[in-house]
């Protein structure tokens, strides 16, 4: 087996460009996913009414659908069914945001429900208004409880971002495939990309584990 790692240096700008696209995709999806997810979480907490039904439908659908199906559906069926035809990049952002929102809604709901009932009662007993009960008492505790699974959500999104290479978004995997077929150096490029993904994902999964262990220590 002969490998030639200098080829990575030769194509460093393409690889770094792919890395940047991946990070931008994940970042955009996270931000819009948080917004959509917070809204869906509010709907889910209402327990009845149109917003509850809508957000339940949304969460159940997008958590159960495979991401591949979703990406292909939006890209290939979108132009027929909708009056707008999203580009590959837009498809990537839309599909990842929808998935992120659905997962984040469940994470936020679990976080808010993990705040014990005594906290609600105590906050009201002190005479806080409903608004300040949420802002000062419930949300800070809920956010703390949400941290481990939110970190895992980031890893999940980074893993999902590779899928949009199938519709031609020039992120890491797309670049590795193109450069690999160009130079027949698949081994070098895919190993490099795997290492880059590991560097992106590993800190978040470690952080999730550490926070969880830390919280368990505090409780126990």
């Amino acid at each position: 087996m002969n490998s030639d790692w200098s080829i990575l240096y030769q194509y460093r700008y393409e690889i770094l460009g792919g890395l940047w696209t991946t990070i931008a995709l994940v970042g955009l999806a996270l931000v819009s996913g948080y917004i959509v997810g917070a809204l869906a979480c509010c709907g889910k907490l209402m327990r009845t009414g149109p917003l509850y039904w809508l957000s339940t439908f949304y969460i159940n659908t997008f958590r159960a659908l495979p991401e591949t199906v979703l990406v292909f559906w939006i890209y290939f069926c979108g132009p027929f069914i909708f009056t707008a035809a999203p580009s590959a990049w837009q498809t990537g952002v839309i599909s990842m945001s929808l998935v992120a929102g659905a997962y984040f809604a469940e994470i936020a709901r679990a976080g808010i429900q993990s705040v014990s009932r005594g906290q609600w009662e105590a906050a009201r007993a002190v005479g806080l208004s409903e608004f300040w009960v949420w802002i000062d008492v419930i949300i800070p505790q809920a956010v703390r409880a949400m941290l481990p699974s939110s970190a895992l959500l980031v890893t999940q999104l980074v893993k999902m971002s590779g899928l949009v290479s199938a519709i031609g978004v020039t992120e890491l995997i797309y670049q590795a495939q193109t450069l690999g077929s160009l130079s027949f150096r698949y081994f070098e490029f895919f190993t490099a990309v795997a290492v880059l993904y590991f560097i992106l994902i590993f800190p978040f999964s470690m952080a999730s584990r550490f926070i969880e262990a830390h919280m368990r220590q505090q409780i126990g």
Partner: protein
Amino acid sequence: MLASKKALRQSLPWSYIISTVIALAVIATVLNFVNFKAIAALDFTVVYQYRYTFLWAIGTTLGITSTAIVIGLIVGIVLAVLIIQGPRPVRMVVTAYVEIWRNTPLIVQLFWVHFAMPVVTGVNTTALQSGLIAMTMQSAAYLTDIARTGILAVPKGQYEAAEALGLPTWSKWVDIILPQALRIVIPPLATIAVGFFKASAILSLLSVGELMTQTKNIATYTHKPIEVMTFVGLVYWALGYSFGSLAYKLEDILGSDQRARR
């Protein structure tokens, strides 16, 4: 939870009015973009026409998923025992394997196995073989971790009792520890199985021949992507959902059984 629900009801009927308006606005925005002529022209007979292809593809997907889970579980249990009992270098190697395969995307692993591994091993694999290898290796990594937590959750007294009875090591693991550990890990195992069922759609990027590959082929061949992909989305959803509920049932039954025994 009850408290927040009551609070929302009591303090503001406003919140209900606002939420209804938001929900209607979202639905209206989506409907505004829908091209109703295209929906009226949908023709779902194409699904019936290709029913055997679909059935065969669903079977392939289920086969790939169950193979990956079963082999992964066996390998995972062995690796978990190695992590717990093995000598230090072995433990480090196994941990490195688990971390690497858990912290990289399946797509990268798939392409790595298909394109890069032949350079190392000199053996070319078909797309189906590559898909199976990648899925199995990833599921082994995930299941190692799950099996480890399951084994560690078995109370220490069980180990001591097995040793006090003078059982040989093999019998201690196979008859005493592993059955109890497996019962503990059934819920996370089911979650992982559903996750891998969903993830198997990724294999279509290599045209492995499972459900999503055939979907793309049929959609391109018949020029009816909406009908075919919507149907397949429903199939994935229904299968994943029923697996999930089955897992919850199983968890309920086993959970109550355990509680009764305690």
